[in-house]
C-alpha cells in the first residue's frame, strides 16, 4: 500500500481553476462514493476548501493510482486533462506524509498559522469515515496529522500574533485594556476593515456600541447589525468622553478629530485611557493625538507594520514547525514499515516452521525408536538451524529501508511465499 496526495492550491492554481475543481456542498459526498466505487484507490479522503482541493489516497500501485485519480477528477468535473496537469501537484510516500502534516498544521496555508484548515481537514475525515472510504493507513495518518498540528501549535508561536489589521487592533486593545467587555466602543463611518474590526471587538464581549455616520440611514443599518446606538455625526465628539475604543473609517478628505478636542476630552475623562484606530485613507484623525498621555492612536500603516512584523515572526516559527514535521515523518514511516513487513515475516516464519516440522518428523520415522533425550536434541538442532537462517532476512525487513518493497518481493519469490498484503 502506498500513500498518495494529488491536489491543487492557491499557489498552483488561480481561482478560476480552483472553483472548477472544487467539490462544494453535496458534490463532495457524491464524489467520495464514486471514487470508492471506481476501485482506483483502496483508501481515500477528499478535502475541498476555497484555497485547496486535495485527494489523499492509499493505492497499491502509485503510477496507476495517479492516472486513475486524475481521470476521476477530469471526468467528475468535466475539465480538460491538460488544465489539470498544469495545476496539480503529486506527492508520494514520505512526501505525501509531509504534505499532509504541513497542510494540517497550516504551514501550507496562504496565511501561515491560520486555524481553520485543521477543522476543515477533520470535517473531510469525518465524511470519509461516514462513507467508510478509509482504512488502517489513512486513519492513522489523519490522526497523526491532527496531533502533529496540535504539537506545532503548542510548541511554536506559529499561530500566536495577529496577521490581519483587524486582529492586530484587537490584540492591541487587549494590551491596553484589562477587560474588553466593560469597555465602550464607537464606530465612526463604515468600511469593510472597520466593520470587521468592530465584529471582532463585539466577539470579544464589547457591549456598549455607538455608531455614527454622515448618512443617518447607514448609521442606523450598522447600529442594528452591531446592536448599538446611533449618535449624530455632528456631535460625536461629545460622546467621546464615554468612549474607550474608537474605530474611524470615513471618506472625509480632512481630519475630523483634532488634538485639542481629544485633549479636552481626556480632561473630562479624567485621563482614562483611549484607543483610537484610524483606518481611513487619507487619515481622519490628527496624528499628533498620539503624543497625548493615555491616548493610543494607530493608523493603517502602523497596524500594517505590526502585521508585517508578526508575519516575519511566524515565518521564523515556521522553520521550527518544519523541523517538528520532519521528526514526525520518521515515526510514521517506521509504523508503515512494520505494517508492510510484518505479514511477510510471519509468512516466512510459518513456511520455515512447516519445513522444519515435516523434515524433523520424517527423520524421526527413519531413525526408529530412540531415547527421549536424543529426540529433544535433534529437535533443538532443527529449531536453531531454522532460527539462524531466518534471523538475517527478518532483521532486514524490520529495519527501515528504502528498498523495502523490493526486498519483500524478493524474499517472497525466493522462499515461494504468496501471502496477501495486510
Amino acid at each position, binding site marked *: 500500500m502506498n500513500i498518495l496526495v494529488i491536489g491543487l492550491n492557491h499557489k498552483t492554481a488561480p481561482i478560476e481553476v480552483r472553483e472548477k475543481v472544487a467539490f462544494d456542498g453535496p458534490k463532495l459526498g457524491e464524489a467520495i462514493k464514486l471514487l470508492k466505487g471506481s476501485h482506483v484507490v483502496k483508501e481515500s479522503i477528499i478535502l475541498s476548501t476555497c484555497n485547496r482541493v486535495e485527494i489523499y489516497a492509499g493505492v497499491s500501485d502509485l503510477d496507476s493510482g495517479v492516472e486513475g485519480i486524475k481521470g476521476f477528477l477530469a471526468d467528475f468535473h468535466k475539465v480538460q486533462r491538460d488544465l489539470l496537469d498544469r495545476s496539480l501537484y503529486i506527492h508520494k510516500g514520505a512526501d505525501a506524509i509531509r504534505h499532509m502534516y504541513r497542510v494540517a498544521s497550516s504551514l501550507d496555508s496562504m496565511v501561515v498559522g491560520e486555524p481553520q484548515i485543521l477543522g476543515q481537514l477533520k470535517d473531510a475525515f469525518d465524511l470519509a469515515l461516514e462513507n467508510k472510504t478509509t482504512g488502517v493507513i489513512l486513519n492513522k495518518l489523519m490522526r497523526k496529522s491532527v496531533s502533529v498540528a496540535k504539537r506545532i501549535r503548542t*510548541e*511554536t*508561536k506559529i499561530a*500566536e*500574533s495577529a496577521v490581519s489589521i483587524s486582529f492586530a487592533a484587537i490584540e*492591541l486593545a*487587549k*494590551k*491596553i*485594556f*484589562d477587560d474588553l467587555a466593560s469597555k465602550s466602543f464607537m464606530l465612526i463611518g463604515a468600511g469593510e476593515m472597520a466593520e470587521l474590526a468592530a465584529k471582532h471587538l463585539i466577539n470579544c464581549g464589547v457591549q456598549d456600541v455607538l455608531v455614527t455616520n454622515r448618512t443617518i440611514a447607514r448609521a442606523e443599518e450598522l447600529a442594528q447589525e452591531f446592536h448599538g446606538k446611533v449618535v449624530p455625526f455632528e456631535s460625536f465628539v461629545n460622546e467621546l468622553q464615554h468612549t474607550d475604543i474608537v474605530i474611524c473609517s470615513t471618506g472625509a478628505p480632512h481630519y475630523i478629530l483634532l488634538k485639542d478636542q481629544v485633549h479636552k476630552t*481626556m*480632561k473630562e*475623562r*479624567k*485621563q*482614562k*485611557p483611549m484607543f483610537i484606530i484610524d483606518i481611513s485613507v487619507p487619515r481622519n484623525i490628527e496624528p499628533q493625538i*498620539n503624543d497625548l*498621555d*493615555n491616548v*493610543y492612536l*494607530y493608523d493603517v500603516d*502602523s497596524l500594517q*507594520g*505590526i502585521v508585517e*512584523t508578526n508575519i516575519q515572526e511566524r515565518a521564523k516559527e515556521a522553520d521550527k514547525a518544519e523541523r517538528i514535521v520532519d521528526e514526525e515523518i520518521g515515526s510514521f514511516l517506521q509504523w508503515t514499515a512494520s505494517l508492510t513487513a510484518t505479514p511477510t515475516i510471519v509468512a516466512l516464519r510459518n513456511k520455515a516452521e512447516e519445513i522444519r516440522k515435516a523434515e524433523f518428523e520424517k527423520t524421526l520415522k527413519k531413525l526408529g525408536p530412540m531415547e527421549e533425550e536424543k529426540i529433544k536434541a535433534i529437535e533443538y538442532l532443527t529449531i536453531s538451524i531454522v532460527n539462524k537462517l531466518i534471523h538475517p532476512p527478518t532483521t532486514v525487513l524490520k529495519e527501515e529501508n528504502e528498498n523495502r518493497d523490493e526486498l519483500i518481493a524478493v524474499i517472497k519469490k525466493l522462499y515461494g511465499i504468496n501471502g496477501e498484503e495486510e
Partner: protein
Amino acid sequence: MQIETNVLLFELALTFYFIATISGIIEIFRGEKNTSKVTLYLSMAGFAFHTANIAIRYVEGGHIPVTNMHEATSFFSWCVLILFFVHEFKYKLGLLSSFIMPIVFLLMFSASIFPREIKALSPVLQSYWFGIHVVFAFLGDASFAMACGIGIMYLIQERNVKSKHLSMLFQKLPSLQTLDEINYHLVTLGFPLLTLSMITGVIWANSAWGTYWRWDPKEVWSLITWLVYALVLHLRLTSGWRGKKAAILSIIGFAIVIFAFFGVSIILKGRHVFM
C-alpha cells in the same frame, strides 16, 4: 552553632535570590511562547531558607529581627516577597517575578554587607508598640517596592504600545490597565500602612521618651515619604495623574523610601540608627 546555621540559611536564601534574578532576566529575553515558572520556584526556595533564618533570629532575640541594618534590610526584602507571592498567585501577571526579584536580591545583597550579630533590644524600646510599628512600616515600604516594580513594567509596556514597535515583551507583559490598577492599589495599600506606622511610632515615642516628635532624621524622611505618596494619590484622584505619570511617581517614591531606609541610617544618624 545557631549562629552558623543562621548564616548558612541567609547565604542560601541570598544565593537562590541571585539565581532567581538571573533566571528572571533571562526570561525577559527568552523568545519562548510560555513564561516559565523557574524564577518563581527559585524564589520560593530562597524564601523558605529566608523564613527559617528570620524565625531563628526571632526566637533568639525574642522580638521581630529588625534591630540592626542587616536584620532590617533582610526583613524588608522578606516583606517584599510576601507581597510578591500574594500578587503572583492572585493576578498571575506575566513576568512579575523578572521585575521584582532584582529588587529583592539587591535588598538582600545590601543586608549581607552589614554586621550580622543578634542584638538585644534596648529596654527603652521594649514595648508591644515595637512589633506593631515595625510590621506597619515594613509592609508599607514593601508595597512601595512592589509599586515601583509594577511601575517599571507599565513604562515598558506603555513604550511598546506608544512607539508602535511591539517588542517580544509585548505579548508577555500584562495590559496597561491591569498594571496601572495594581500600581494604584499598591499605593493605596502602602500609604495607610505608612500612616499607621507613623501614628504608632509617635505614640510609642511618647511612651518611651516622653515626647511625640523630635525631628529625628528618620521622622523627617518618613514625613517626606508620606507627603510624596499623599501627593501621588491626590494627583491621581483630582487631576487624573494615572498611567505613565503614576508609574514614574511610584518609581521616584520608592527612591525616596530607599533613601529614608539606608541614607538616613548611614549618613544622618538618629535614634532609628540600629547600631
